[in-house]
């Protein structure tokens, strides 16, 4: 009885999630009237504008991930190691992008960093790219910080750092060691 019900729920889920994907794929293959073909794909991949925007998106995503990791991992490590009392506050701040709608934050960016402001980021193409990357990083903050922080919790950073520092006093090596251990927990979501 329970099994039937469980299969029913799962089947509903599968139907709901595959139908739109099937529908989308179906449409994408119907460029030629009356038959299936890959014409649409050939056309899109051959379009230099598509290649350009696609490369741009991929580059933005990669830069965002690198920047996010550089920002979040040292912070999470440092807070765990030296400032554990600040952890709830930092966590609260990183969760804010889930509470404040993205469009509101973007609206704030446009008003704060427009061409007539003290930091005219939207004035140049490069500045806009940077602002976009920062925006993505802000939106990814809740996911990144939690993933990294959970990873750090499972490896007991403090003990590892002490162990490494007793061998090498500068702490640099311990940082390298624990960052290796953390890497597996950083399956950070790329901005869509």
């Amino acid at each position, binding site marked *: 009885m*329970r*099994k039937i*019900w*469980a*299969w*029913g*729920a*799962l089947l*509903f*889920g599968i139907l*709901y*999630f595959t*139908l*739109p*994907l*099937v*529908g*989308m794929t*179906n*449409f994408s293959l119907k460029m030629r009237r009356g038959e299936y073909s890959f014409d649409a794909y050939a056309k899109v991949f051959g379009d230099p504008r598509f290649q350009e925007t696609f490369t741009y998106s991929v580059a933005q995503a990669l830069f965002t991930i690198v920047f996010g990791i550089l*920002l*979040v991992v*040292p*912070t999470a490590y*440092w*807070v765990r190691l*030296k*400032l554990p009392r*600040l952890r709830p506050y*930092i966590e609260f*701040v990183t969760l*804010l*992008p*889930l*509470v*404040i*709608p*993205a*469009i*509101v*934050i*973007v*609206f*704030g*960016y*446009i*008003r*704060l960093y427009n061409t007539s402001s003290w930091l005219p980021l939207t004035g140049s193409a490069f500045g806009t790219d940077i602002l976009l990357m*920062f*925006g993505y*990083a*802000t939106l990814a*903050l809740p996911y990144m910080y939690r993933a990294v922080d959970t990873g750090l919790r499972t490896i007991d950073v403090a003990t590892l750092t002490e162990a490494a520092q007793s061998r090498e006093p500068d702490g640099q090596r311990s940082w390298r060691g624990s960052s290796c251990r953390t890497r597996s927990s950083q399956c950070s*979501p*790329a901005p*869509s």
Partner: protein
Amino acid sequence: MTASVTRLLGANGMSTAHTGASPPARRLPLHWLGILPFAVFVTLFLILPTMKIVVGAFQTPDGSFTLDNIQGLFTPSILAAYWISIKISIASALLGCLIGFAVSSAVVFGGLPKWIRGPLLTFSGVASNFAGVPLAFAFLATLGPVGILSVFLRSELGVDLRALGFNLLSFWGLTVTYLFFQIPLMILIITPALDGLKREWREAAEILGATGLQYWRMVAFPILLPSILGTLALLFANAFGAVATAIALTGSSLSIVPILLFAQIRGDVLGNPHLGYALAFGMIVVTGIANAIYIWLRARSERWLK
């Protein structure tokens, strides 16, 4: 909490008392420097933009204090936009919670094959970020006037969705579309919580003569309530702020707050730049209230758990 704090302070006080005999090598507290980059980034790109909006909502164009912008929100068209936004968000959050919970509990307790779980969670991770233009297109291709499901239902089963009053560019259409990222988010968050329900609890309840329903009502549900409420608040905010999907799907034919705000950013359609601030401020207030309700309910349910 307070006990541990006082203990900590006491321990500190003792240690300073002990070392008080010899002058302690005092160092400037430089620990905070470690989080400086993070603090600067968050201030510049999260706190300040939000503050700018909150302050701007109470300012006239020349900078003096006013409540006119807030008052300007209480016009029928803007109120209607807020109301339909809130309705869509509540509907998609509730349905997302319900369906996500059903799917997740089917996988965790339903006795389904173990290998389903991995792919389901991976897929949920991807689908919860699937939004915007691709999502809108996928649903147009499925439930739009010539979408495969609409066509199939019309030609094979003789059910005309349009004649039944279903329109993708409407309240229910948008809700059904939002569910595509709401359900996976619920699955992602609630599955670990369901894993946390111990088998012993169920066995203990069954030995004491509880039926399945009683177990769920009196044991499992109260334990899960905080997580469910938290996800509900999160899903609400998620749907309330979703703008790319809404614009890609409905253009400007459905007036919901994010679309209105987007139009205001693009070209000042409201005719008063500071009304835009007020609109954005209103969105923060709504999601803020949703989260405040969540925190309050969670405090209540956790107190009840003790």
